[in-house]
């Protein structure tokens, strides 16, 4: 068993409190939720029309609501510090790594041990989870509407196990929230197609290229083993969004999910781009992540470009840290490279690290996170296989019987057994 010691970030007011059963505190547990009323945003499911270009003109409904509710909680003093008072800058250079000096985020608690070699772990009700979050920390519930339109209700009776958007009381940036799908289901931290689709739908509904969602698996610096995504606003591109990509799969049929590989970036990763169908994108990414989970490979996921681009990064920093393979200098910064850091947004706890940060030092840190090229190529093969051979139909590019094969994979992985005419070999 491999473990590392780290201090968990406080994301909720109640996290520090003793784990008392039954609370009288207006939490999100089965003690307080039945009969509760919370704000509710219902979104209309979008089936198509997910173009690359920005939406026209004004800020969207969900956007304005989320910002409004967040600002309201700021006024009410629910956050541990004012994140907008934290200095932030772009490190000189073409990649545009973003550094922030945030001395308040780091909690003074003792470091605890986290197991880093088991990506899938069963839910443990005794540990902190999101049912213990106070209802005041919930900005609103997020559910699909019945009539296809978007609407907001100040107070609506909660469904049995709603999807909630809660504040992160130790925000990295303005608007930092947690999306907890089906909070009372008590699902452990893992990706599945339905909840991933929900996260994508939130990105689509927010319709803002500067609002991204992120996911950390266990072993890739998630500290709470209760299914959740994070999200926040930052009006600047992340370095990973700027990085060039190489198409892995040729598009044969118009409208399929595009799969690409990241280039010129310290952490190796796959990029999935939406075609006609958001569901197909969700399935493609989820199938990849399910492979990684089952193969016990820690990973992080970034949802960017209004739900149109999803980055998947398998990583091994925690494992290397546990084995003592990471440079002490890097460990001293106490940066835990999770999805935001990997994307290029690095929050630093000490002023000396902030003032001496450079593009090179950021690159060096992130290079420690990446799988080696050899290992990544292996993992990539399996990921791609799991996308195409999945039982749920993913329209990526399945050629018809009488058209040519499409080629796939730079390492000779073949796919689909549809045509007997070909020399393509099944791996």
């Amino acid at each position, binding site marked *: 068993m491999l473990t590392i010691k780290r201090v968990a970030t406080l994301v909720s007011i109640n996290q520090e409190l003793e784990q008392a059963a039954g609370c009288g505190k207006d939490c999100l547990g089965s003690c307080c939720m039945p009969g509760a009323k919370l704000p509710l945003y219902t979104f209309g499911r979008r089936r198509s029309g997910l173009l690359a270009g920005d939406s026209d003109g004004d800020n969207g409904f969900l956007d304005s609501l989320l910002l*409004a509710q967040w600002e309201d909680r700021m006024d009410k003093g629910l956050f541990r510090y004012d994140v907008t008072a934290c200095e932030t800058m772009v490190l000189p250079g073409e990649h545009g790594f973003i550094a922030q000096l945030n001395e308040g985020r780091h909690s003074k608690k003792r470091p605890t041990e986290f197991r880093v070699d088991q990506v899938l772990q069963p839910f443990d009700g005794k540990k902190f989870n999101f049912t213990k979050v106070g209802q005041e920390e919930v900005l609103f519930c997020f559910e699909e509407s019945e009539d296809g339109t978007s609407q907001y209700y100040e107070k609506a009776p909660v469904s049995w196990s709603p999807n909630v958007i809660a504040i992160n009381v130790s925000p990295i940036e303005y608007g930092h929230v947690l999306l907890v799908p089906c909070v009372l289901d008590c699902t452990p931290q893992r990706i599945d197609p339905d909840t991933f689709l929900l996260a994508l739908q939130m990105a689509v509904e927010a319709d803002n290229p500067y609002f991204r969602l992120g996911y950390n698996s266990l072993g890739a610096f998630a500290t709470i083993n209760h299914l959740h995504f994070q999200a926040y606003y930052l009006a600047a591109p992340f370095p990973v969004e700027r990085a060039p990509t190489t198409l892995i799969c040729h598009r044969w049929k118009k409208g399929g999910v595009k799969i690409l590989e990241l280039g010129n970036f310290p952490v190796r990763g796959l990029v999935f781009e939406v075609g006609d169908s958001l569901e197909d994108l969700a399935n493609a990414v989820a199938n990849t992540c399910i492979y990684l989970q089952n193969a016990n490979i820690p990973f992080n996921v970034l949802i960017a470009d209004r739900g149109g681009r999803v980055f998947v990064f398998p990583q091994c920093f925690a494992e290397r840290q546990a084995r003592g393979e990471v440079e002490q200098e890097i460990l001293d910064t106490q940066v835990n490279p999770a999805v935001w850091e990997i994307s290029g947004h690095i929050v630093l706890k000490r002023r000396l690290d902030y003032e001496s940060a450079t593009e090179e030092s950021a690159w060096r840190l992130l290079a420690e996170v990446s799988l080696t090229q050899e290992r990544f190529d292996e993992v990539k093969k399996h990921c791609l296989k799991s996308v195409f051979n999945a039982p749920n139909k993913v329209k990526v590019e399945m050629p018809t019987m009488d*058209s040519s094969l499409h080629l796939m994979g730079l390492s000779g992985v073949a796919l689909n057994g549809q045509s007997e005419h070909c020399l393509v070999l099944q791996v």
Partner: protein
Amino acid sequence: MELGEEELTSSVKRYYKESLKHSLGQCDFNFVLSDPRLPDNPIVYASEGFCSMSGYEHHEVIGRNCRFLQGPDTDRRTVLEIRDAVREERPCQVHILNYTKHGNPFWNLFYMAPVYSRKDGTVVHFVGVQTPFSAAATAAAAPLASKKLNLMDAEKRKEARSECLQQIQGEAPMRVWFALNEIQGCVCFVEADEQEDNHKCVAKDEDKGRAACAVQTILCNLMENSRIGGGGRGVAETRCKEIAESAVGGVVCSSLMLSLTRIQQSFVLADPKLPDIPIVHASKVFCEITGYSQEEVIGRNCRFLQGPDTDPEAIRKSIAGEHACTVRILNYRKDKTSFWNHLHLSPVRSATGEVAFYVGVQLAMDIVDSAGDENVGMTPYMKQLGAVGAVKVAVRSLQGSGLRRSFKKNSEE
């Protein structure tokens, strides 16, 4: 958001003389001018060439953002590059897949360059030049295939190739790839040659040269025909003042302006570092509610809204304490009528962490609609807070140097 025709034409008139139309008319290029200080960076001038290239009529183009040229296969990362060039207020050159009005895709070598004001260094317009091209060579998508070919016998390769082609009854020209799998040996893939790789496409050097020349010519024309006098000093193709420097003078840079104009609420931004905390930006809705124009408001302290019966003490306290507050204050419109203003005030910080502005979001109580279900939709107060949040996100990254890249080497510092 409808833009008045006057706003669009005055965008050009304000900075350039009448003679510009004539000299631009002589240019054979496809190009547009857009104004990032108007909502959504709309096109304010389009050349004949642009219209015939895109298939749109002149009136279908003026007032719209250029993104209507994008379509389903347009690369998302390329769109990000353009968006970020606008945000960083700098030039960019991209190869982008565009579409005509009738939905026909074409590859476009798109050059964009800012036109800066000589007076305060802000971006006055963006010049966008479109040069359609046909691919020089489509980027191959399988470089590793050729590496593995070396390991294989040339004779066997020929054999495999003809076998493949025989078995696949394709009429169209084919490309044959080989890949080597350590366990199973050589694998052959076949692909139709006309499959478009919409991911990458590179223009020939001559196209690039033409495009660069076009940008230069247009910029020269703009500079030669720019208005000087009456406070203006003309335009230039390079910045005379860095964004941070202009910001000190109370000028709102174009990329921040672009974010602010997305907010559909009445609000003003005031700069506490300048004497008497003047307004540096007022939203359109503010002007509609109060009856003042932007020119009448910018540079003045907000107190012109107050009258004999107003008590501004709470506002003063809030600014002194650098904290947010909500006050109910009596205000007066330009036509001297009064209204109760549910004003929400908040400090807004930039990337340095220091207070850069105060945002004041007005809510005129007499226009609040009390009819209708109060449980449905956002309350007016919530909408005010939403405006505050949007301002905070924008200012943090876009005010002063903000979160824009710099290319200074560390050794120079």
